[in-house]
């Protein structure tokens, strides 16, 4: 027994080492981002003593990270709002309303879960080109919505199933239309689920590379993540500026994680337990 307890405490060593391995790469990058080029070449590990913000502003302006940041912000915000609207509408109808074909429609939505983007990439690029949506905000937004809608509908449906049907009945008797029930009752009641699914979708869209790469070929339409991929060639001889660009792209996600850690983990967990 005593030996077991000692072993339990000794676990702290590998687990802390792993924790260090988990955060060190980012701390290293942040440190490099604030170094001067000379400092970096002389010593990779020492703490920066210059707090050289110039790298950050170079990455923001000359490397175009500022512009890409705005592109990402617009596309992601609109995609997520649209996902939440369409997902909650469909989720409400599929869980609380009875109508012919509802289970077939639900299965149709679920089928989308099993089709990754890579599999439909080629025809999708063609469809987007044929409809002149390629290289436009609406085009990429549609692609993101199509990608993450099955998951959103699935989670919203599961969530709304947990709401007693009596609530809907009561609202109907009070004279609400179905749309009124959606807007006045279901949308507010769905807030916790909308929050979780919204945060997850924000991360998914914000972090995406492949869809943005395929759907936004021209340089000025790049999203932030595509900006990161182009930094390498541009600043291969100036590592601190490269690191600054990476940091700019990572900071929004880190902030979100810092404040909404629980909700993100809960969203992931909900996605799995509903499976």
């Amino acid at each position, binding site marked *: 027994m005593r030996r077991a307890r000692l*072993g339990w405490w000794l676990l*702290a060593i590998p687990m802390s080492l*792993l*924790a260090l391995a*988990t*955060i060190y*790469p*980012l701390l*290293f990058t942040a440190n490099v981002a604030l170094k001067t080029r000379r400092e970096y070449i002389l010593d990779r*590990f020492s703490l920066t003593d210059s707090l050289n913000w110039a790298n950050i502003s170079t990455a923001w302006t000359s490397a175009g990270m500022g512009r890409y940041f705005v592109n990402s912000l617009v596309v992601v915000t609109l995609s997520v709002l649209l996902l939440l609207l369409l997902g909650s*509408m*469909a989720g*409400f*109808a599929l869980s609380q*309303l*009875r109508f012919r074909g*509802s289970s077939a429609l639900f299965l*149709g939505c679920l089928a989308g879960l*099993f089709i*990754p983007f*890579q*599999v*439909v*990439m*080629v*025809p999708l690029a063609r*469809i987007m080109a044929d409809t002149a949506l390629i290289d436009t905000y609406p085009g990429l937004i549609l692609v993101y919505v*199509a990608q993450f809608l*099955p998951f959103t*509908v699935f989670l919203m449906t*599961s969530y709304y199933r*947990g*709401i*007693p*049907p*009596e609530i809907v*009945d009561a609202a109907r008797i009070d004279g609400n*239309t*179905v749309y009124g029930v959606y807007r006045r009752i279901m949308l507010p009641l769905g807030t916790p689920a909308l929050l979780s*699914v919204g945060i997850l979708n924000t*991360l998914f869209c914000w*972090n995406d*590379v*492949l869809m943005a790469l395929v759907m936004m070929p021209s340089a000025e339409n790049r999203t932030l*993540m595509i900006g*990161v*991929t182009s*930094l390498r060639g541009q600043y291969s001889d100036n*590592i601190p500026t490269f690191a600054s660009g990476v940091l700019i*792209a*990572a900071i929004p996600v880190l902030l979100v*994680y810092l404040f909404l850690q629980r*909700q993100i*983990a809960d969203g*992931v*967990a*909900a996605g*799995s*337990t*509903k499976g």
Partner: protein
Amino acid sequence: MPIGNTQPSVRLASAGRAGGPAVTSPAHRGGARPRGGLGAERYAPYILVAPAVLIIVLLRLYPLILGVNFSFTGDGDQNGEAVGFGNYQELFGDQLFRTALRNVGLLVLLLPVAVAIPGLLATFIYLRVPGHRFYRSVYFFPAVLSPVIVGAIFNLLLAFDGPLNAVLGSFGVGAVDWLGDPDIAMFMVVGVHIWATFGMALVVFLAGFATLDAALLDAARVDGASLRQVVWHVIVPSLARTIQFVFVTTMIGMLTSMFGLLFVMTSGGPEGSTYLPEYYIWIQQGQMNRPALASAASTILFVIMLVVGLLQIKLLDRSGKED
């Protein structure tokens, strides 16, 4: 928590619905309502579902069929002409595609490692190893970073003149070309992928633990079971469904979300050693202008995913029943 805690009442909705009035049958009460609203009300469920279904059908299901169809036609001069299995023949003759498939095999071999690490860590955290809260939030954090950010960070760390080699050098070990050696590069990319995603699986495992019957654990402890016995005889069988889920999602993650890492870390090199089907599809479509060939590769990727998913569900279902 927000979504998770609705679970107990899930049954309510369908059960309570049986004799439920009104909502779903507005037509029955139609007589009392102004006629104008009637049609709109009756079709309301369809109108609410329509946008989602249309988008999914038009931009998911339809392209899937289109792509499979497209894979049997030719590229370039033969654009649109039926070529039977020509593209598939060409694929299997292509060294790069064969490497991509071999790498899929490597992923399958490494899969148990990618599942065991988060599973073990989740077990310790669930059993409240000292500092479990701290570990939980630190381990999860790389999972929220974009693959390209992760890739870019590791490009710095693994560079030939980078920190990892500097550390090795201080121990007197010679520098290794981590991303430039065809025998090593793929392992590095997969390793980084596991580094970046084990937090996701960890959280899923912890959600599974939440459904575990604590009385079972207590009973095992009272009976004097060691940690290893508890894990093997209580935790593993109780979590069979979660383990199955993590296996399938981890494999799918390896097949479909390593593009960013490959693109940034190795671009498929050195000598094409880090190709995966998804990267191959992108190269053929975007760089080589061979969309029909890319479609054939997409179809194969889809089949691989279906087979992997079904096989794992089958195997794990059987092992779950034996217990």
